[in-house]
């Protein structure tokens, strides 16, 4: 039983990591209708930036805050410079552009910061507690707390403020939004900025829990974050979190109890997604689009 609870805890630990990046993916999708394949690498560059600031002697949490702020501006600039010129193109073109951005940012990170692994510092003491025989890490608690705050803030922003309404309006119908006076360009920049800021926070908190910061740090996380978002529904922040947890726990439990899955653990979350999407194509919490003419 203790064993099982520990595996469950490990799964939750991985799950909140996936969820934190999935939330950024959902935010961009919800506000701009774009699947951003470069989300992980944007977070990677932000995380390197946090690391560099900390190395220069800034307290880690200050470094994270600065990095989050700079990433907001960076994300907005990426929208303006890279995405805007292809905004009117087909979704396929936009997807290809974000994949190009993925490669460019990854290479950029390697050129600037090198290919060696760096030890990423934590903003809090690395403690762990024994809770009913289960080892609970401070990392997990911090990530859960941050996720919870992000969810509440995002929900409030999108559902209860005028800016949030405009952001959702732009995602739903840019032309009609423009016709009632919404500055669509600024809204898109704002959405990308927010997602980049969320990614920066996720990366800066997640990477310290891994072996070290390398150019590949975010890639496996991004794959599972996509899985989480697809599972929960790309337009639902709550879905991203629940999806992340399901993917993490499924991964942890199956590799613990099914021997032959150890080398191909990636099959578990994706098998799960396949089943869910076959039954519920919009994801667990996704809104089914209805449109009459």
């Amino acid at each position: 039983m203790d064993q099982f609870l520990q595996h469950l805890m490990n799964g939750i630990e991985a799950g909140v990591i996936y969820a934190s990046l999935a939330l950024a993916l959902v935010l961009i999708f919800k506000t701009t209708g774009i699947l951003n394949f470069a989300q992980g690498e944007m977070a990677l560059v932000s995380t390197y930036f946090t690391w560099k600031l900390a190395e220069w002697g800034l307290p880690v949490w200050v470094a994270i805050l600065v990095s989050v702020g700079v990433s907001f501006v960076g994300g907005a600039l990426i929208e303006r410079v890279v995405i805007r010129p292809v905004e009117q193109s087909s979704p396929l073109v936009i997807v290809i552009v974000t994949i190009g951005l993925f490669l460019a940012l990854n290479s950029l990170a390697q050129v600037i910061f090198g290919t060696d692994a760096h030890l990423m510092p934590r903003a809090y003491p690395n403690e762990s507690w024994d809770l009913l025989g289960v080892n609970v890490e401070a990392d997990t608690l911090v990530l859960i707390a941050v996720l919870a705050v992000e969810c509440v803030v995002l929900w409030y922003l999108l559902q209860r403020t005028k800016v949030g309404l405009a952001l959702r309006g732009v995602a739903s119908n840019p032309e009609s939004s423009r016709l009632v006076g919404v500055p669509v360009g600024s809204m898109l920049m704002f959405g990308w900025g927010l997602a980049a800021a969320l990614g920066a926070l996720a990366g800066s908190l997640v990477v310290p829990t891994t072996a070290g910061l390398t150019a590949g740090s975010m890639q496996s996380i991004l794959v599972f974050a996509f899985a989480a978002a697809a599972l929960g529904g790309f337009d639902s922040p709550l879905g991203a979190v629940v999806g992340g947890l399901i993917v993490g726990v499924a991964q942890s439990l199956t590799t613990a109890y099914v021997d032959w899955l150890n080398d191909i653990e990636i099959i578990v979350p994706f098998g799960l997604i396949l089943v869910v999407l076959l039954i519920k194509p919009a994801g667990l919490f996704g809104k089914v689009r209805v449109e009459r003419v």
Partner: protein
Amino acid sequence: MTLLEVAELRAGYGPVQVLHGVDFSVNEGEVVVILGANGSGKTTTLRALSGILPARGTVRFEGRSIGGQRPEKTAQGGIAHVPQGRGTLTDLTVEENLRLGAYCRRDSRVDRDVGYWYEVFPRLGDRRTQPGGSMSGGEQQMLAIARAMMSNPKLLLLDEPSLGLAPIITQELFRVLSKLNASDGLSMLVVEQNAGLALGIATRGYVLESGSIAVSGSAAELAADDDVRKAYLGI
């Protein structure tokens, strides 16, 4: 007094020029209708006016030049455009559609106005929490007009409000439009295929043919004009 003055308006899509110098005007308190066959440039005219399409020529609104202005600026300036196909924000609820219509407003009477439009179109009130896209075509057209009106415009541009609607719904819509003009003095520029209905509420009208104005006159003159009757009224 002239509210909107358009001269030598030229616009098109890429290399294809659709408007070859269009001239017309809308006075304060008037309902002006633009008639024309498919492809004559009616929709293009409205899209050029609100800034969705790049255009050349003179467009003056309340005496100020607004040619080449971005659509969000045009909307902020008091021109509301109900696009062809209704432009419903399908993922937003009916109420959110209306509130987004008031995006440019800074006053505190938005709640009251949302309630007002629920009174004008009770069916919107019944469906306030439903996604806009789940409603019927007629309801979405009502929503489009109410959303545009939420911005408190000085000029309402309407692109084919009757398109795809049952005759009884169309009549109800035109009754509301006529009332808006009569009681609130709202100026309108209506592009419409249903010439009979449109001329019924219009002060003046223009006939657009292949991208330029072919005939103009008062609504009564146009309704009596033999060519107009044959081409657009089917009599």
